[in-house]
């Protein structure tokens, strides 16, 4: 007779197999193949399995690819920061102050996500363009004599639209953290003499920081992966490491170098996230929070 333990194990195997197969076949296998290719050499249209580290040397020594990877990290971090600052009050408002229209507000927040990124990007062009709404307004009130060209097709414009694009993810992450926050803790803080601000500072913020961190990691990764927004909004400086990889895979047919850049990017990302996670978990706060329910 099969023990309960055996049954559990079988059940787990049955339930986990599709996910494992899927991840294995469509995520790990291509990445492994890409990793292998990154040691190849390209000879016209053939990939020669002449295994060496030349491609990695190219990535590391090339100022272009180093700059692009650094820029991706910087922009990811900046947008994560911007969204966190903007999202927190909004999430706080929805979680703590809204009662009846909570679902409606959250849905409204998500609507831009349903419109598709191209629609959103072109909507921003209408706002930020040289003859766009904002410039027209600024000219009309006399704040400027020439349209401000840098409103569109600039790094700033790109960061603005990226922030807008990924704000909902951050709001959702923080909102969930706030909803999960035990309300009796707020009463306890008030009971012990903390006013609104100090309750926020000493109780609400530390306990919802994990939500902010989750949101930040999500936004960070999404921003690094988004090459369309910088390409269409960032102007002549809108190149991203992702579009460079895309060019190498497509136009140049240099899969090995493309693979090497992709893997360096991934290594930097994973190291960064792991370092952040370790730091967070090692901290007193992290340890304390990890032990709660």
């Amino acid at each position: 007779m099969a023990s309960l333990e055996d049954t559990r194990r079988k059940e787990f195997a049955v339930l986990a197999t599709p996910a494992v197969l899927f991840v294995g076949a469509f995520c790990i296998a291509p990445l492994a193949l890409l990793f292998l290719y990154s040691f190849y050499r390209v000879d016209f249209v053939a990939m020669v399995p002449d295994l060496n580290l030349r491609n990695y040397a190219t990535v590391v020594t090339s100022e272009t690819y180093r700059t692009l990877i650094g820029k991706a990290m910087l922009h990811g971090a900046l947008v994560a920061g911007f969204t966190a600052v903007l999202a927190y009050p909004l999430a706080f408002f929805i979680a703590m102050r809204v009662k009846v229209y909570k679902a409606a507000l959250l849905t409204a927040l998500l609507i831009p996500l349903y419109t598709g990124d191209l629609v959103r990007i072109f909507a921003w062009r209408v706002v930020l363009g040289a003859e766009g709404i904002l410039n027209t307004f600024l000219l009309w009130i006399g704040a400027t004599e020439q349209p401000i060209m840098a409103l569109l097709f600039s790094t700033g414009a790109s960061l603005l639209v990226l922030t807008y694009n990924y704000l909902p993810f951050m709001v959702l992450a923080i909102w969930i953290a706030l909803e999960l926050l035990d309300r009796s803790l707020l009463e306890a803080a008030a009971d012990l003499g903390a006013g609104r601000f100090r309750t926020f500072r000493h109780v609400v913020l530390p306990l919802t920081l994990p939500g902010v961190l989750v949101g930040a990691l999500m936004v960070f990764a999404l921003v690094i992966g988004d090459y369309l927004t910088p390409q269409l909004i960032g102007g002549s400086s809108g190149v991203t490491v992702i579009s460079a990889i895309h060019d190498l895979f497509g136009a140049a047919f240099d899969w090995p170098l493309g693979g090497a850049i992709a893997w360096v990017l991934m290594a930097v990302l994973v190291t960064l996230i792991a370092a952040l996670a370790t730091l967070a978990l090692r901290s007193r706060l992290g340890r304390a929070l990890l032990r709660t329910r």
Partner: protein
Amino acid sequence: MERSESELSGDAGDEGAQSPLLVARNLTKDYGPVRAVRSVDFTLRHDSFVTILGPSGCGKTSILRMIGGFEAVSGGELTLDGVDITAVPANRRPVNTVFQQYALFPHLSVRDNVAFGLRMKGRTAEMAKRVDEALAIVRMEAMADRFPAQLSGGQQQRVALARAFVNQPRLLLLDEPLSALDRKMRKHMQIELKELRQRLGMTFFYVTHDQDEAFALSDWMIVMNHGVIEQQGAPQDIYRRPANAYVADFIGGANLVPVTVMAKRDGVAGADTPMGRIECPCAAGVAAGSTAFLCLRAEHLVLSPAATARAFDGVVTHVIFQGDSKIVEVEGAGRRLTLTAAGTDGVEPGSAVRVGFDDAHAWIVAG
């Protein structure tokens, strides 16, 4: 501590010249169209243990939350030490609370949890010393650097207590603080709480639905039902002289035998009962010519009484063994009555028995 009859009317009885700690006047709480607390009045004395007892939904927690400042007062007023606190926000009331689920801050150590109130009030100079003292009082010094999730329920309970009383509030509110503990732990904590209160000398306002707990702890009890106070007084008085049938039944589950009140004078009623005419003290609402209840406690009913006692015949329907005693259910006097008896060999369902009681224990309440 016996109290005179007059105190039963509702006033908590000031001791000497000392003014009351807290006065609630016409206190009312509405949740939308639902009135949870209906214009209640009560007074809390200094240095006392007050429990507020009632079934769930009776309004007792609403009263605690209004005193704590977590719920707005819908009507009436609250005065603490002569100061109207009705509109004072929670963080500015000299009151602290022990929450039902403790509400310890999970991201702070035991020490920081206890220090929280002092830190918020900027009393950092004395903080360390007072936190250590408070932790010593609840015997949690050794756990000071742990986090709440590393503690057992009883330990969390102690930390929650320390976190509240370390601020030396005038009034400590406790919202069913023992309900999450197991029975053994609960008994133990009851003793600790009572000792702690005496040691601290502050007033505890304790919400519970458990009458045993209320009896064990309090020197003043407020019994609530449906948003009104049914009775308040010393526990013994409430037990012996319940104000009405509800209190009689809710507190200790008295046997209620319907009687007809023939006459009433000076708090003594004469009534016709299935056991003949009886004259005994009665509650305030009892009126001549009305139907009322003779209130007989289980421990005051005896089997095979002496010939002089008032008695009636009955048949045993159930016997529940309880170690040193038995709970016997008897059908007699037109009612099912419960009594407790010791050493009653041979009493079993179906036995014909004679049940008696002493008139001195009789008490009549209104229907």
